[in-house]
């Protein structure tokens, strides 16, 4: 799914975050899948703030 999303990744300063220790991809974890589904239900019901969508 990520490949379908066109995210503009910052090319600014190098990250301060350590990623030498490999963190696995938790995209298939049932908890995170359920949370993402719940978030979609909430936002489809309540929408987004207009101000947020117009902000750059």
């Amino acid at each position: 799914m990520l490949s379908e999303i066109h995210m503009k990744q910052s090319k600014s300063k190098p990250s301060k975050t350590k990623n030498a220790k490999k963190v696995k991809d938790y995209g298939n974890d049932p908890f995170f899948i359920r949370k993402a589904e719940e978030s979609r239900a909430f936002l489809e019901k309540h929408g987004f703030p207009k101000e947020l969508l117009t902000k750059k």
Partner: protein
Amino acid sequence: MNLSIYKFSASDTFLDFEFESAGPKGKIRKIVRYSPQNAGGITYFNLGFGDLNPKTGKIDDLAVTNNQDREKILATIAATVLEFTRHFPDVIVYAKGSTPARTRLYQIGISANWSDIEPLLHVFGYEQNKGWESFRKNVNYQAFLVKRK
């Protein structure tokens, strides 16, 4: 950040972050995941947070570890938001706790780190029966949306 934070690591995609809580209950691995999602044609990322169960390798969503480091954990989650949105400055992040009490903790975390967050992020809270509004301290929100300024 004003508060001390745990050192955290990120996955290659910068969608997954991990840190280790240390306290009286020992060391507990914490995972923050930004899951891409779409609602009404708008792409955003859901902030998910939980304890990693070392036996199953899965996330325990309702684990109560009580490691007496709540503020440090909240500050670390806030730091991952800043790091994630630094890498992906145009994205919208949605956050809601697994329980109302945990959503309230997010509110406390945002308030406690407001001086660091406010210059960098637009933060909106959803108040029941009122809808979305710009974040204000001491208001009980049901959910939050943030975006880089």
